[in-house]
């Protein structure tokens, strides 16, 4: 009698893929911190960090090393267990979100095995990513409350209500896309775009709403109210030091990377190369995988650049403006977009 029936090859394949994606997330997040400072310097007519290595490319390593070796302070009145759980949760939820993203075309081995470049192509697809994002609020809330500091608590509650509010228009904007694909599976969302063209052409309003909500979900400017230093000192991570603070800041960059990847997959065709039919080139599946992966990474890098560009261009909203925008403007707009899309699809399929 066998105790466990496990497909070892599948486990090996998925473990390698997961390790690769986590490594990639960390790598991209590391270099987004450098890119943020370089873009800021560029927009403000400065040079930016350029001491560590040529053009400052070792700067993220220096920053990370500094954070690791800093003294770690846990406030005496803090709830010690939850104080540690907060940044851990923020990091874990940021990393899990990438499970459903298809990174490249499937790789076919010589034996004929098809290895999809996606951790899990589940039927729920994009909803799974949404559920993890909605759980991501707890990292902020628990951290803010466990610090036992009024400013941290206020910032945590601000952050949580902001994230809960902006999930609604995000979901409504997404529904319009799902009308067109008829499936929640990420692989089918991409396949639909390869066939009929990118969704951003059909859903420009939906994309803008989704993008604004993604900015708010990642706590990025102009929605970075949870860390508004002029009202709340430093926000929900005020009491944090050393690598725990690093985890919060780093999780934000990973969230940016993953939300860029999700937006690229939903609206910009994922790994699809525009204007050409790459399937007719007759390349081997290995090269197709490599090319499609570099295409999606180029699109993601551009989206990340837009994130940084916005940060150094637009000032922060006031809190009531943020809530007005979310509830009174974005939700009606998203609903309108949804109804129009549904009507057009009905009319076309008549």
């Amino acid at each position, binding site marked *: 009698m066998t105790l*466990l*029936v496990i497909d070892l090859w599948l486990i090996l394949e998925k473990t390698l893929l997961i390790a690769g994606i986590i490594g990639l997330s960390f790598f991209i997040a590391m270099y987004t911190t450098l890119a943020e400072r370089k873009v800021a310097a560029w927009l403000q007519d400065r040079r930016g960090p350029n001491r560590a290595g040529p053009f400052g490319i070792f700067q993220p390593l220096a920053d990370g090393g500094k954070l690791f070796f800093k003294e770690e302070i846990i406030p005496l009145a803090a709830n010690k267990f939850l104080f540690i759980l907060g940044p851990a949760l923020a990091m874990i939820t940021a990393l899990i979100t990438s499970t459903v993203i298809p990174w490249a075309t499937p790789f076919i081995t010589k034996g004929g095995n098809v290895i999809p470049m996606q951790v899990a192509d589940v039927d*729920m697809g994009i*909803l799974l990513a*949404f559920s993890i994002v909605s759980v991501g609020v707890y990292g902020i809330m628990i951290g803010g409350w466990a610090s036992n500091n009024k400013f941290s*608590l206020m910032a945590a*509650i601000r952050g949580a209500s902001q994230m809960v509010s902006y*999930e609604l228009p995000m979901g409504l904007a997404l529904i319009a896309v799902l009308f067109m694909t008829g499936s929640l599976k990420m692989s089918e969302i991409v396949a639909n775009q390869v066939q009929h063209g990118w969704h951003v052409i059909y859903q420009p309003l939906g994309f803008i709403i989704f993008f604004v909500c993604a900015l708010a979900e990642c706590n990025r400017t102009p929605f970075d109210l949870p860390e508004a230093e002029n009202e709340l000192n430093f926000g929900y991570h005020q009491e944090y030091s050393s690598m725990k603070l690093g985890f919060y800041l780093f999780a934000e960059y990973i969230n940016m990377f993953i939300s860029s990847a999700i937006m690229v997959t939903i609206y910009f065709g994922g790994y699809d190369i525009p204007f050409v039919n790459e399937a007719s080139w007759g390349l081997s599946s290995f090269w197709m995988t490599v090319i499609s992966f570099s295409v999606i990474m180029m699109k993601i890098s551009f989206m990340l650049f837009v994130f940084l560009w916005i940060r150094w261009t637009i000032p922060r909203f006031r809190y009531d403006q943020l809530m007005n925008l979310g509830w009174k403007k974005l939700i009606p707009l998203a609903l309108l977009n949804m109804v129009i899309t549904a009507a057009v699809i009905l009319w076309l399929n008549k």
Partner: protein
Amino acid sequence: MNITQILFWFLSVVAIFSALMVITSKNPVYSVLWLIATFFAISGHYILLNAQFLAIVNIIVYAGAIMVLFLFVIMLMNLNKETEPQKNRWLKMAGAVAGGCLLLVLVAALKDTDIKQQQALVNEGNIGLIKNLGKELFTKYVVPFEISSILFLSAMVGAVVIGKKE
């Protein structure tokens, strides 16, 4: 024992343990966090039954939204061990008796149902997938579905009326 059974027992133990922790924790914030753990374990059970949509919606709605509001209230009111009101002993005993009666009724009601003979479809059956579920909901069960959405609408209107300033 195959992997489904192992997962079933693991999830059951997690669900029951964290449900017990919800009611035995002294700190209300811990109670809420254990309740979230319970929801995750129950979602795991849904996935074992291949009810994927239910599992995900359970996490989005309960763990992701409702529990956040619970935490808001508890954190803002700063409830903790010291502020928890101490009920007197008779009230506690009355609660135990009432809870025991409910348990008795539930056990008596479920004892003779034919659900015992029915095997749960583990990892098969496609009704839990979103396409089939949607078709069932909007054709066969459209009237109950619409009635419950009217219920939600009235709850929303009620919340807005209460929350609105004079």
